[in-house]
């Protein structure tokens, strides 16, 4: 039977990434010098699993790399090696290398073999206590089968097998061994019962017999010993060659060979063991030669490339058993209700209306509960996104010579998996910014009388259907003066503009804005906050900043819990219902005639306090019917999209409700100005407005018309 092991790879990758995360966080927690044994064990176990799995599933480069790491950890576990800061740092780097390797393998890209080999060499150097590495960096054991001494050839073997009395208690059975031996050739077995005690002294669970076996066949000594490998320590075994040359006496007491050698093998995989010793080990225990690491020439020849994009977005999801159980329970309830309704329907009379209504109410209740719970399956604790920060902050603060303590809270706050995957990068950006621009160097902090260790706080909590993520630091805060100057320089504002501090702070979200004096490799490349803001907007979220000069700053991100459900305002236009996402609505108002201004034949503006807002007649955009052509009879929903305000002219406001978003694209086709559709309670389809898209659309229309009238 041949089984394709690649089908288990997805699971392997998933658990390996989890293992690497665990290794990373445990490594970061390790107290150098006084490492916690449990932590070392946990780290070891994770490395061990990755090594075992990668070997089994044919990922040899990973197996070979992990082997060295594991050996190092094994020595730490056994107390043979101290846990030093350089070792921890190197292991953290190794975690990165493994993550890159696995990512590359998962996405079918080439492994950066050069980098991996470099780190592996460093590990090996560390293993040997700082000696120069020799040329061999492959990590291949030298005791491979090819190192065998000349194989004894004869017509067969005479085997004397005398088990110790406890043999059966290890689950071994001489008969099985003989059967296995008979697979290799023909055997003749003679039992020796001279060891049997008197009947009264016999313990039926002990073994008192020994055997003499004549084996005829072409198996060499190693193969024969291999059959007895498991009972090595539980028997006396003597092999004598039959019909071979007499000088080849290989009689050997068994206990000698197998136990001692291999430890040294693992500690110094790179050091060529003396051939004789290697041969002895190989001959005595052929099973021992680990087929872990074939020479990694194939990866070496692979062209080194840029680091693979570390995309760990995966298609599968891990769900807690409790969530699944809850679902099963609910389906059970649903089935019961359904059968109850069935029964009711069979002989229904009007006097049972009451019970019918109760049944229907129950059905509704269960359905809603089921819906909520199904949605909950996609929810993961935000710790998945937070987990990478201890490492990031550790590395960056060290690099920048800053002293930072990272505080995480609300890690168990749950949010949708898709949202989680997309919020990762913006969070990293904000954290990097805080470390680079916000938090001062220790000496500056000291001179300001601030505590030497700065605090960076990541916090998450739920607030009315939203998840709020805060990134706050006790650093310098935003430098309003600098931002203002920069904005003037970039032409975003005029020199004479009087802006409130909040307005100035918001300028950092403008494209191409960066105030870093010097571009560091940490942040400040100018592709910054505008991208962060855009990413968050794409998730229908919002970001704001609060900063107190000298005290610190706080970025607050608000995100919907899920992208599958939306809080919507239902509006009516003719006989159609549309849905406006609640997050984009600023206000809704009755139109007052004196506030409407027509600028061109078709362009109208509405005066909203100090601002003029373009009026968007939805019926014109979509070319549909409406009740009111006169603005005065309808309502204006003022929305914000893409940083611009617009007023949507509708016939009526209906209710607000949560709607389940259905893709328009996959069910029909893409329509400009619409982001999706939903099915309302009465079964009709309502279209969901894409506010930023609409705003853009109306701008284009105005431009086109202006161009047309200019041409005319």
């Amino acid at each position, binding site marked *: *039977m*041949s*089984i394709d*092991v690649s*089908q*288990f*790879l997805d*699971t*392997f990758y*998933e*658990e390996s990434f989890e293992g690497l995360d665990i290794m990373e966080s445990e490594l970061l927690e390790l107290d150098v010098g006084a490492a916690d044994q449990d932590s070392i064990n*946990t780290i*070891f*176990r994770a490395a*061990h*699993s990755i*090594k*075992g*799995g*990668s*070997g*089994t*599933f044919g990922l040899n480069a990973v*197996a070979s790399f992990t082997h060295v790491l594991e050996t190092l950890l094994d020595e730490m576990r056994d107390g043979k090696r101290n846990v030093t800061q350089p070792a921890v740092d190197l292991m953290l780097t190794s975690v990165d290398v493994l993550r890159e390797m696995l990512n590359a393998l998962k996405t079918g890209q080439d492994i950066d073999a050069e980098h991996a080999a470099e780190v592996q060499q460093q590990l090996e150097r560390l293993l040997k206590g700082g000696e120069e590495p020799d040329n061999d960096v492959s990590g291949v*054991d030298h005791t491979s089968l090819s190192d065998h001494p000349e194989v004894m050839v004869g017509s067969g073997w005479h085997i004397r097998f005398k088990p110790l009395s406890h043999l*059966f*208690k*290890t*689950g*071994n059975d001489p008969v*099985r061994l003989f*059967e*296995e031996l008979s697979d290799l050739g023909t055997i003749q077995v003679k039992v020796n019962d001279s060891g049997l005690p008197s009947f009264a002294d016999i313990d039926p*669970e002990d073994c008192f017999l020994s055997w003499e076996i004549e084996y005829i066949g072409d198996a060499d000594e190693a193969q024969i010993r291999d059959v007895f*490998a*498991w009972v090595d*320590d*539980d028997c006396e075994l003597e092999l004598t060659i039959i019909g071979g040359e007499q000088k080849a006496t290989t009689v050997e007491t068994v206990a000698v060979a*197998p*136990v001692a050698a*291999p*430890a040294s*093998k*693992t500690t110094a995989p790179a050091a060529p063991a003396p051939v004789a010793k290697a041969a002895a080990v190989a001959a005595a*225990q052929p*099973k*021992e030669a*680990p*087929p*872990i690491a074939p020479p990694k020439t194939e990866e070496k020849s692979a062209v080194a490339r840029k680091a693979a994009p570390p995309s760990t977005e995966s298609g599968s999801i891990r769900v807690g058993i409790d969530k699944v159980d809850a679902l099963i329970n609910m389906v059970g309830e649903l089935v019961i209700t359904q059968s109850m309704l069935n029964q009711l329907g069979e002989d229904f009379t009007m006097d049972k209306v009451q019970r019918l209504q109760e049944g229907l109410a129950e059905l509704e209740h269960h359905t809603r509960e089921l819906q909520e719970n199904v949605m909950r399956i996609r929810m993961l604790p935000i710790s998945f996104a937070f987990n990478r920060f201890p490492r990031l902050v550790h590395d960056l603060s060290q690099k920048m010579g800053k002293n930072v303590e990272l505080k995480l809270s609300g890690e168990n706050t749950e949010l949708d998996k898709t949202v989680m995957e997309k919020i990762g990068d913006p969070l990293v950006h904000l954290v990097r910014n805080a470390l680079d621009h916000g938090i001062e160097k220790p000496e500056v902090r000291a001179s300001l009388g601030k505590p030497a260790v700065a605090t960076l706080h990541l916090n998450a909590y739920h607030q009315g259907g939203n998840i709020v993520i805060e990134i706050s630091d006790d650093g310098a805060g935003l430098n309003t003066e600098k931002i203002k100057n920069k904005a003037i320089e970039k032409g975003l504002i005029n020199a004479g503009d009087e802006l409130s501090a909040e307005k100035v702070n918001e300028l950092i979200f403008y494209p191409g804005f960066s105030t870093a004096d010097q571009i560091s490799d940490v942040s400040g490349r100018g592709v910054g906050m505008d991208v962060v803001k855009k990413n968050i907007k794409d998730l229908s979220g919002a970001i704001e900043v609060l900063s107190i000069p000298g005290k610190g700053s706080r970025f607050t991100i608000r995100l919907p819990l899920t992208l599958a459900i939306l809080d919507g305002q239902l509006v009516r236009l003719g006989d159609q219902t549309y849905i406006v996402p609640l997050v984009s609505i600023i206000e809704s108002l009755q139109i007052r005639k004196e506030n409407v201004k027509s600028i061109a034949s078709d362009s109208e503006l509405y005066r909203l306090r100090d601002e003029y807002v373009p009026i968007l007649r939805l019926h014109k955009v979509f070319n549909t019917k409406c009740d009111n052509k006169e603005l005065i009879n309808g309502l204006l929903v003022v929305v914000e999209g893409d940083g611009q305000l617009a007023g949507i002219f509708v016939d009526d406001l209906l209710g607000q409700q949560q709607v389940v978003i259905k893709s328009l694209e996959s069910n029909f086709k893409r329509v400009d100005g619409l982001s999706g559709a939903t099915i309302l309670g009465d079964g009709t389809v309502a279209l969901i407005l894409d506010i930023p898209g609409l705003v853009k659309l109306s701008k284009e229309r105005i431009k086109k018309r202006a161009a047309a009238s200019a041409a005319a």
Partner: protein
Amino acid sequence: MPTILAVDDSASMRQMVVFTLKGAGYTVVDAVDGVDALSKAKSNKVDLVITDVNMPNMDGISLIRELRALPNFRFTPMLMLTTESGSDKKAEGKAAGATGWIVKPFNPDQLLATIKKVLR
């Protein structure tokens, strides 16, 4: 067909072992660590135990020791899956009552071949 108790904390290894064994017609009970295995061993009739060594909660060697102490498992073959190339783990496992071992990495065919050694 014999029943095999397969114990491994790694989901991918467990999947592979279970898939291979079931494919060969064995009945398989799987467990995620020693503690899980011990409780499953008590409620199933088991003809062979295959366990990983390094596991949280209870490692494979302790599991073998605990199982050997149970009346039903005095003579049951127990194999450990080990990547440990040093034989100290093997010796430790043998001392605890292991029948033998399978060295990782192994492929499904090797696994089945080894099992045939003890389940003839």
